[in-house]
């Protein structure tokens, strides 16, 4: 488990990092927490000539309240996100998903932006990000741009981040007062979910006013269960109503088959887990 030799750069500003990226192009890889990249290097699945470490860029770390959104710096470790009171209050779905994310060691090393930029459809944060309508702030030589969650995830391991760009922060629209539940279905606790459903619900007087549901491992990107969201709006927060809506969880999905479960089983799980997540999020 010895990686091939590489040069290591540790810029202290986003501008310097972008300059390094521009200089080295395809020969360079950005490293954040390294929880996915290091195994790739150690197993020699890839051998970049240069690693650009974002760990020395202080401006990429931290969580702040920005009016209608909570802003999470891309290099903020999961452990910080998971214990942050602002996140817990305004984006509880994130807090709950981070609780389920890998193990304590990985939560301390891995970063919020790094995990999302890795864009593993089985990742724990993609579902909550699409459910909450996260906005991804991406910086390049020409300045910054913001991409919505629906456009950010392009395909397996592929995002809207350009080769010459860096994800700097993620804006999570506040969902203050929304109930939240993350249902992660695994065989052993430290594995990627077979299916995970992240649901957040605004209940108004016993009625589900709005619901947002994101799912992991139901396709090549995190996906929203839009059919369920639409079916739930205005419904009573009851077992029967939620069950009926949740039957549509797998509409439009394209789940994989692998040694942990075939596609039809994942579809079934998505329906059951969606029902459970929504009911729990609704406090029913």
């Amino acid at each position, binding site marked *: 488990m010895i990686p*091939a030799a590489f040069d290591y750069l540790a810029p202290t500003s986003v501008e310097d990092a972008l300059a390094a990226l521009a200089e080295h192009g395809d020969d360079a890889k*950005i490293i954040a927490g390294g929880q996915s990249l290091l195994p790739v290097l150690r197993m*020699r699945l890839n051998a970049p000539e240069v690693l650009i470490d974002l760990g020395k860029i202080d401006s990429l770390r931290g969580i702040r309240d920005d009016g209608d959104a909570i802003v999470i710096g891309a290099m903020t470790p999961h452990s910080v996100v998971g214990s942050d009171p602002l996140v817990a209050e305004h984006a509880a779905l994130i807090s709950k998903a981070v609780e389920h994310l890998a193990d304590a060691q990985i939560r301390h090393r891995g970063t919020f932006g790094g995990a999302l930029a890795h864009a593993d459809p089985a990742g724990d944060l993609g579902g909550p990000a699409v459910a909450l309508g996260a906005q991804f702030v991406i910086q390049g030589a020409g300045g910054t741009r913001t991409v919505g969650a629906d456009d950010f995830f392009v395909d397996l391991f592929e995002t809207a981040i350009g080769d010459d760009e860096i994800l700097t922060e993620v804006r999570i629209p506040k969902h203050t007062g929304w109930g939240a539940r993350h249902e992660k*279905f695994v*065989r*052993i606790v430290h594995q990627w979910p077979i299916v995970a459903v992240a649901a957040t619900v605004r209940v108004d007087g016993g009625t589900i006013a709005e619901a947002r549901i994101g799912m992991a491992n139901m396709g090549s990107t995190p996906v929203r269960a839009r059919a369920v969201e639409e079916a739930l709006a205005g419904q009573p927060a009851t077992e029967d109503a939620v069950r009926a809506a949740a039957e549509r969880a797998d509409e439009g999905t394209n789940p994989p088959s692998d*040694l942990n479960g075939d596609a039809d*089983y994942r579809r079934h799980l998505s329906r059951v887990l969606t029902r459970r997540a929504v009911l729990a999020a609704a406090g029913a």
Partner: protein
Amino acid sequence: MTATVDQVEREIGRDRRRKEDQRLITGRTRWTDNLTLPGMLHLAMVRSPFAHATITSVDTSAAKTAPNVVAVYSGADFGDELGVCINAWPITPDQVAPTHSPMPSDRVAFAGEVVAVVVARSAAEARDAAELVDVEYDVLPAALDLKEAAADTVLAHPDLGTNKSALWVFDSGEAGTGAPVEDAIAKARTDGIVIEREYRQQRLIPAFMEPRSVVVDPTGEQYVMYSATQIPHILRFALAATTGVSESKIRVIAPDVGGGFGGKLQVTPEEWIAWAVGRRLGKPVKYTETRSESLLSAHHGRDQWQKLTLSAEKDGTVTGLKVELLADLGAYVAIVGGGVPVLGAFMFNAIYKFPAYHFSVQTVLTNKTWTDAYRGAGRPEATYAIERLMDELAAEVGVDPIAIREKNWIKHDEFPFTTVAGLEYDSGNYEAATARAKEMIGYDELRAEQMARRASGDKVQLGIGVSTFTEMCGLAPSRVLGTLDYGAGGWEHASVRMLATGKVEVVTGASAHGQGHETAFSQIVADRLGVAFEDVEVLHGDTQVAPKGLDTYGSRSLVVGGEALVKAADKVIEKAKPIAAHLLEASADDLEFANGRFSVRGTDQGMAMAEVALATFAAHNLPDGVEASLDSDATYDPVNFNFPHGTHLCAMEVDTETGELKMRKYVCCDDIGNIINPLIVSGQVHGGLVQGIAQALWEEAVYDDSGTLVSGSFVDYLLPTAADTISFEVDHTTSPSLTNTLGTKGVGEAGTIASTPAVVNAVVDAVRHLGVNDIQMPCTPERVWRAIQDGGSGGATTEAAQPHFDEAEGAGA
């Protein structure tokens, strides 16, 4: 004196903390990979990506020019000096076995086989250069599926003409130990019950904590091999036997070794390659495998199809058992190899009084990683089959699974009992262990809850799994191993050295790799010689320090090695006695030895063992003709195996909507005879349980249809952690073994052997009323869910893994 004698606290039975743990846990000890010798070179292996292929060329030129590369060799660069990896147990005289070159030059037979080795000044440089070795292959069709391979549809080794290695048969009718089984089955078909099942023992990977590592030092008068092995003595013998080096010129050292579970009961290609390279270059070399290499190429375990026919009377009294196994050897016949299923041959009848029994195993070569011993080796497979069958019989008869066992098991007053497989069980009490286990789990209350959940159609159903296991362990006895054509004996050797200061050095031929021998053996010797626990040093794992031994596996160290120790200690006392008598000016006949002290009967005269040791060292005043040494050796070879048993009960909740399993409670009451150290036993049982539960629920080595190991990392080979298990409740009944003076039985494998069927029985029990009578291992939620849907056992595992680490990795997470 007598007043204080009784107050001396016995070491045996004490919860001693393990004296070796501080150095092991803190890592300050010397693991093989920690060793750095002057001028040492490092090896990296080039491995075949193909399951079966002809090697058409190996181009090492680019690798040879890489920085600090000293040499690059392929199989063609070595002749006979490379030696071969041995099979020490040809189970039949006509066993078909391919020659197992450590580094073949013509053809590879499994993905992961070594085809070239790079030698460099650092491990990193060796690894870098290994990428530059260009091997060309002509891919051949691969024999992968066990049943298809048994039909010889594709040959794993074309020159052998068949994949069928050996057919080993035991028949109670022929052996005279019972009636012919076919008669019993025929009778039951017309007037009784016949249970016919086929069970799959999935392929497992031992997954020891410390990857294998080897250092070869050829610079001294003896060649030294350090290896993370369970078997330094057997390794030394095999090196001498196959590489042309005199045994007296070989020293093998197993430094502290981080786990094995049978996975380091092997002589490996990597050891042989390191040996050959070290000798060729005349310099120390080191090779340490990566975890990926370990999962891919260290031997795997289990992998059987079990076809089972049980006959019984209508009331559930068993009348016959027929076992037909297919066992996947993988690409080569490993050191124990086909002997693993044979170790299970005597255990399918278990604790039950079968009057007729037939066992056969066909071992089969395939183009997968070779298989060999894995914790339990043969007995888990047997126990799984019979304990699953007894549940099926209970369901057929319509009685409680414990009742059907009680009807058929050997009663406690029937010991010693000669079984239909020809073994003599010396002691046991199945009634007592079962009663205690039922009490621990609250059996009747759980059954009531189960009935209530069934009646209400609860989404969460409850199952209670039973496993009343026994096993044979303590390998040994040599004569029995000889009749089975095993290539070695089963004795064990020990030495006790009395030092001048009264301290004691104990040398054992057992080779601990995590078991706690240093602690347990110290307790035995402390009691025997009456010295302090802290004053006993246990030395092992080096053929220069412990020249005789047969190493550690098969739950043998205590019951064989421990007994050798007792006998050596007793010889020390016998040698000390005339010296003490001489110094006390008494007759030896008037001396008694207790609590480390010789006393003259009826007087207050006495002398401590430490004083005798000092006097013997000084040798100023010894009796005439008595040598100036108390040191003693003993080699012990038991006359029988020993037979731990126990009752394991598992309560499992099954979410019928998703197939998710939640273990609620697991209790076991094991009878392992007298216990030396309850804390160590507890560790062995808890760890063993998890390993057996892991087979039931999680672990499986999966290959795709091109012979690539899909579960090639811990992402996909699901090794549980503490977070995945519950806390177990462990208790014991005690029926001392009659085959050793300590009255002990082995415990290293018991938990693993017992727990797998307890768990699967619990899962099936929870959903049996929904039309399910089997779920294939591992019982994944998907298999459980499908079984509930269609009553099937869940089928094969989809042979694909998801990528989580992308080759074109973008921004790292």
